[in-house]
């Protein structure tokens, strides 16, 4: 039995199936973990979601910003802006069912795996964390968002999760601002400064790091406790420079490759069209 963590799928259903075939993934025996952004941008978001949902307990996912955006679209809570390739998914008869299924998924997933190097803790999230957060606090804050997403008033959350402010975490945050900041760290952050102010405009790789900012994983304080698995940032091309922080988005939707990391032996697999 193996655990494969794949990067951002983004509706690239065919690529996902090819990669799984390549690693000889066996539903029921193996586990597939997804770092989020299952949908949008790519051509087959609908097939991707149906496939992952049907994997049942063989699949663990965390929500990415595009997944949240799909839920908000489905619930008519999203602002009218930006291009998306969710039309087919939104028009499908099981769109509501898929959105409801996503709405029950976490933003952070934590598990212990029996690897070749012994028992190892892993924490999976889509984008990043604030500099101040411990592993426990990260899980608690993720749960706050999940409770909002699954509660009666989830539309208020979906409506107000958009926006870049407040720019940083502090313990005194309350209400929708608090949820928005948690969501932005977990699903959108790439760069932040020494006190956690998020720089949500820059998307480039490390060579283009904006002045005064660093990648969020240069400030994080949880990888000593658990190895971090994340996606969201294709420009990193899979590299963080930190052995316990694993970047898995390798830009398949941009014509690069789709990566899977096998947790048991740390081996990376990749599929690309070329």
């Amino acid at each position, binding site marked *: 039995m193996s655990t494969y963590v794949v990067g951002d799928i983004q509706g690239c259903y065919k690529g996902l199936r090819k990669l799984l075939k390549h690693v000889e993934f066996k539903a029921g025996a193996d586990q597939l973990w997804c770092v989020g952004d299952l949908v949008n941008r790519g051509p087959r978001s609908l097939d991707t979601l149906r496939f992952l949902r049907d994997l049942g307990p063989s699949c663990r996912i965390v929500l990415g910003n595009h997944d949240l955006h799909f839920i908000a679209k489905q619930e008519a809570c999203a602002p009218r802006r930006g291009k998306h390739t969710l039309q087919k998914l939104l028009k499908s008869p099981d769109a509501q069912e898929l959105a409801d299924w996503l709405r029950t998924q976490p933003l952070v997933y934590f598990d212990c795996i029996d690897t070749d190097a012994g028992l190892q803790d892993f924490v999976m999230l889509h984008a990043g964390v604030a*500099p*101040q957060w411990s592993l426990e606090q990260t899980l608690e804050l993720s749960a706050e968002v999940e409770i909002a997403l699954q509660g009666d008033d989830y539309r208020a959350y979906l409506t107000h999760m958009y926006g870049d402010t407040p*720019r940083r975490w*502090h313990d005194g945050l309350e209400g929708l601002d608090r949820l928005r900041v948690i969501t932005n760290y977990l699903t959108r952050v790439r760069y932040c*400064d*020494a*006190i956690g*102010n998020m*720089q949500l*405009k*820059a998307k480039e790789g490390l060579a283009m790091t*904006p*002045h*005064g*900012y660093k990648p969020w994983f240069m400030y994080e304080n949880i990888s000593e406790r658990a190895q971090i698995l994340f996606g969201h940032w294709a420009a990193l091309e899979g590299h963080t420079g930190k052995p316990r922080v694993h970047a898995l988005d390798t830009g398949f939707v941009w014509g690069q490759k789709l990566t899977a990391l096998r947790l048991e032996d740390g081996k990376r697999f990749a599929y690309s069209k070329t």
Partner: protein
Amino acid sequence: MKIYLVGGAVRDKLLGLPIKDRDWVIVGARQQDILDLGYAQVGNDFPVFLHPETKEEYALARTERKTAPGHTGFVFDANETVTLEQDLARRDLTINAIAESEEGELIDPYNGRGDLSARILRHVSPAFEEDPLRVLRVARFAARFHSLGFRVAPETNEIMRNIVHSGELASLVSERVWQELAKALASKSPEAFVTVLRDCEALGVVLPEVDALFGVPQPAKFHPEIDTGIHTLMCLQQARLLSDDPQILYATLVHDVGKGATNKALWPSHKGHETLGLPLLNTLAARLKVPNDFAKLAALVCEHHTKLHRLALVDADKALTLLEAIDVFRRPERLNKFLLACEADARGRTGFENREYPQRAFLQSLAEAATAIDVGAAIKEFRPTDIGAFVRELRLAAVEERLLHIRPESYHGN
């Protein structure tokens, strides 16, 4: 005993200007007579008294005799036989040598009224030549009254030139020169101070660094006025329209002194004039005992003005480095002074006088972002080991963030 209003008060009254200080002259009295009336003497060897109620200055009519070189080499004679005309004769300019009696009658033996209406700054007597400070005072009057049309009389310019050639001007103590310069800079037309000094060849003695700029060409594309000295005068005019802060005006006056030290073979280019100017400013500051605040602002403007013009600050690190040099975090007031001097430089060019200067708002915005951080709270929360590096990183991030939100307009630099 008769009392007359004299000097600036009479002059300003005749010009229809507001009167600031009233000076009075007392004729036909002895020192003791004045003290008996309850006046308080100011100083010991100088016959000046304060009125018991108005506290205005009253002086016994006096004559002066030159006994030694320099501004202080005089002895006074203030006995009761000295006449009003004798007292007026020792004054510098005819427009300052008019008296008014208590009955309102004007006593004007040197035709000061004629020169007032003809707008002429003319010396009263050949004794003018005995006091070198008068060269600076006439230049300062020119700076004050230039906008009313006043010009220095050719014969007065001649006598000022004689003083310069005699070497007496160089004998003035630096504090006096600085005092006159600082006052002139805050006057209505500071550029006239420079022009008048230059006309009598005093500029090369008082401010050789500025004198050296006349005749130095600049690229016509950026400087249609071409001559660096003319540019400096235009900058002073523009600076004075923006502010009457003598620090800003001093920084404007000397911002381009480096252009007097660039390689002639490379003219009209002045690449590197910003750094070439710094040692010249140090020499100037030491010679005139320029106060630190003035010298520091002048050095900042000299070194960095072209960076702001060219907006070479779209790089957050460079922008923050400049803000640190200005010390905007401890001296927030200095930023605006720096910006106004830079704006005066940009506008002090033929055809650019009314040009917008978006760089001002641009750097202000970056400074606002960098200073908005609650450094104390952040240090408390994160307890960084290297506080200096931590704080700089935060400020850098704040400037970077702001840069992403503002797009400076395009602009022709120099």
